[in-house]
């Protein structure tokens, strides 16, 4: 049996940053992962966008923290994570969307977010060659940006190891030793891990994992498809999000990373439920049409690779953050709804503070994400 202060299940976008921040507080941490290495769940499929300009206070708060961390990552920790502050731009072509996004600006301004309505000329200047017919302008948030999911999780892993975190790979969770409200230890196929605190950071596996504890955690994976092109000289800077529905899809988004490659992703509508991550023939023509329609000059770019990744969805589209119902020492960081990569750094830092007694400062904000909520709201900007 091994003994730790905290055992984290899942070495992905959420678990790895958390392990680092906890270990920096002097805690002894184990991270248990079923794969051979870090980031082999959905981190590998993340496209890299990081924004604070959400529609709800909790995610805004967490992602502001994330942005603060990643934008200073190189100077603070020495690792290049390909951070690029290109901003997020939501171009708008319909009156309905204009009203919705402008309404949202009021909420966003209340939380001190740097985001504004850019007129049509500004949108065209930021995205030279964007389809101009019917373009009304859009919202632009210059402080948002992107980083490499691969590089960021690798950097966090090195930092975590340096500060004493133990990673256990190829180990899957079996049963728990527990009494009424406390977990004492978790059993894997290789060993038994005792700890004072346990964290679920298992991403798309959360529902199955928690069923072992008799918990019904509403996390249901859906799959989205992404792709990447060849690198070319930079020709636009922001992440572009088109929230209009299309045939077979709701929104889609793309940006040009620091290598010059355009990374893109689309949200299928109706959603594709389940954990299947194999490619289908529908995706590429669908997303390509939408991209060339919105931004005709993309037609000259060559697509290099496509993949599918999972969005662990919750009924209301918001993450589950907080103590698991009925347990005193089991914390859920689950159902990130496809935003685990951008939430991970901030959530890790904040959760570490909660665990070490500074929780009160966040209670009112994170309250919204508590796992035992009623799920009757819905996220406006998924």
């Amino acid at each position, binding site marked *: 049996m091994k003994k730790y202060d905290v055992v984290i299940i899942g070495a992905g976008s959420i678990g790895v940053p958390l392990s680092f921040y906890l270990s920096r507080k002097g805690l002894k941490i184990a991270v248990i992962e079923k794969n051979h290495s870090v980031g082999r769940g959905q981190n590998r499929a993340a496209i890299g966008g990081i924004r604070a300009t959400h529609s709800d206070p909790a995610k805004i708060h967490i992602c502001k923290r994330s942005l603060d961390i990643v934008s200073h990552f190189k100077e603070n920790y020495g690792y290049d994570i390909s951070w690029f502050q290109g901003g997020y731009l939501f171009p708008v072509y319909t009156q309905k969307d204009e009203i919705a996004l402008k309404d949202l600006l009021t909420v966003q301004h209340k939380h001190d977010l740097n985001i504004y309505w850019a007129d049509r000329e500004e949108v065209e200047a930021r995205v030279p060659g964007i389809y101009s017919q019917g373009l009304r302008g859009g919202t632009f948030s210059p402080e948002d940006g992107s980083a490499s999911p*691969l590089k960021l999780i690798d950097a966090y*892993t090195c930092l975590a190891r340096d500060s004493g975190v133990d990673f256990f790979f190829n180990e899957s969770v079996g049963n728990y030793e527990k009494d009424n409200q406390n977990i004492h230890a978790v059993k894997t196929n290789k060993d038994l891990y005792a700890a004072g605190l346990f964290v679920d950071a298992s991403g798309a596996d959360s529902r199955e994992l928690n069923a072992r504890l008799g918990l019904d955690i509403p996390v249901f994976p859906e799959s989205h498809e992404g792709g990447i092109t060849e690198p070319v000289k930079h020709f636009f800077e922001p992440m572009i999000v088109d929230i209009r529905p299309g045939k077979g899809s709701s929104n889609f988004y793309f940006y040009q990373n620091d290598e010059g490659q355009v990374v893109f992703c689309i949200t299928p509508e109706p959603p594709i439920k389940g954990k299947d991550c194999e490619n*289908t023939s529908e995706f590429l023509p669908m997303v*390509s049409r939408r991209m060339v329609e919105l931004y005709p*000059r993309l037609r000259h770019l060559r697509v290099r690779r496509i993949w599918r990744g999972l969005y662990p969805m919750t009924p209301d589209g918001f993450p589950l953050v907080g103590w698991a119902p009925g347990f005193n020492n089991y914390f859920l960081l689950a159902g990130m709804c496809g935003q685990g990569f951008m939430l991970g750094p901030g959530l890790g830092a904040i959760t570490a503070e909660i665990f070490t007694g500074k929780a009160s400062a966040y209670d009112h904000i994170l309250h919204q994400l508590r796992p035992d909520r009623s799920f009757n709201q819905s996220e406006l900007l998924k």
Partner: protein
Amino acid sequence: MQHRIRKHPILSIPDKVEMVSFTCNGKSYQGVKGEPVASALIANGFHVLSRHPKDHAPKGIYCANGQCSNCTVIINGKPQKSCVTLLEENMSVRLLDDLPEIPNDTVAYHGTLQKEYTCDVLIVGGGPSGLTGALECAEMGYSVLIAEDKDRLGGKLLLQTHKFFGSVDDCYAGTRGIDIARILSEKVRNHPNIKILLNSPIVAIYEDGYAGVFTHSKYYGRIAFKGLMISAGARERSLVFPGNDLPGVYGAGAFQTLVNRDLVLASKRIFIVGSGNVGLIAAYHALQAGIEVAGICDILPEVTGYKVHADKIRRMGVPIWLNHTILSAEGRDVLQKITIAQVDKSFRPLLDTGKTFQVDTLLIAAGLTPIDEYYDVAKRYGFPVVKAGDAGEIAEASSAMFGGRLAARELSRQMGKEMPVRDEWYRKAELLKSKPGKVWDVADIQLKETFQPVIRCSQEIPCNPCVTSCPVNAIRLNPRRHDLMDIPEYIGGCTGCGKCVSICPGLAIVLVRKKNEKQAEIMLPFEFIPDFSEGSHIPLSDAAGHDACEGEVRRIRYDKKTKTHLIHVVVPLDKALSVAGIRVQNPEVTKYLPNPTPEYFPENALVCQCERVTAGELIQFIREHQVRDMNQLKVLRAGMGACGGKNCTVHFPALFKQAGVDPQDVVPVKFRPLSVEIPLKSIVNEEDPHEKI
């Protein structure tokens, strides 16, 4: 002055080609209309086609096959792979020295519907196994679609000017690859159940039962299929050594493409790494094209290809350096010299045995890797699927042709229609795949005044044209194993017709007779254009490739059917049984510099050429980051480049070993589509408004 092949002993050089003008970096040049732009550039002396955006290192052609993107240049304003873009009048080419810029294009989207195809059996690759497989499937009544990524059917057969091994009945032994390609394509084209897509690589196999296809470098479409035959061949393994990225270092297949298909005189003098059949045949192709071959090296103690091939190459005057590895390739911008060195028992190079050769091209023929990713994908999805030819197992094309038929039967079984296969087929398939076997001593003949064959074919290989071509049955296979691998032997009755001499793919047979008390007459095969005439004295080699003596040419005959000359020479009687071949290359060509000065820093060798990641960086990363999943190496961008990891990922296991990690404990790289980069405009099937079509 264009670098083009003007005469060739086997390939027909077209009398008239249509030349067109194009510009490169603003200057005007001429090229052959319809040839790949890369070939036109190389024919005009361009070897550096781009500079890498990261460090401005020069890049030249590498695969000549549309697989990597080393040859990307700007054509009419847009980045294109020059090896698969065909030359048109007034094309404007700009060599790349940075990331390409995409045009500021505001023309609205105007895509059309996606192209859709349906078939029972989709054949991925129309080479030797794909063609025979297609015919077999079509005969069984299936509708067949062949997707071939080149502009003509035949695959590697099209590059093979040598006569084939194997048996005449099963796989056209004794016929040249280029001729077999013609015969098979003809049959396929005339079959009512077979449709063909040329210039159409399959780029993905999707879970929903479709294949993605990229036709004519313009349109993307999908193909609905019921069964799949993966006959996509093999890709050449790259080698990791310092200088492996210099323009002038490339695969033997790329060389054959430039020289035998496009008739471009790509080099003056080459060196070859690898003594398998691919390397040996590349040497032979070079000599036929008038390109000097300084030598061949192989790290192993024995030639890995057929002994008859190696002997033939040695007799032509090309030394084979066994127990030698490539140390480095050097040059300013383009390859100028290479250094090889002997290895110890653990294959470590002994640096003081270095030998430096001045060459402008280094061909890598270090083995082939099956292109079978789609097989694994299709299996995972539960589709009926078979592999055939090199995609299944690396072997000769003779084996691939037979294997294609067998694979078709297996596919039909999976698709629910079983066709009986006789056991004999499986035996034959195994036989044709055989690696060379035992070497036997061959008895000398007793000289007579009439011609008798001396057969210098002592290693078991699956081959019998000498037996089947003899009109009087004077040659048989010595029945030790009772199969095609047996060694041929002369059993008496030779009439001196020379059919065996001209058909033997290994050029291993000569006819000999005692002419008088002092002289003997020898009839030798010659697959070059003779630069001598009757009465000339020519240098002759013995069986091992050493000088035998000079011979006086008495008669030059030409066997049109086999495109082989039969040269009658007269030699001193005591040399009669030692003369085995005609030397075609001046020994000066093969000399090395006395003082080797290789820059040998193996850790600087590039593993991932697309993203320029070195062996040293990767090994250090594996150690320091405790990497246990090859996909993690993408942090350094290894495998993230344009080739899709096709060239570098094969080296990853060795790197883990060097870093002290057992590759068995490491997750392999995940293969993801697309296997060829496709422009978005092709995916939406847009005609380019700026392009004349």
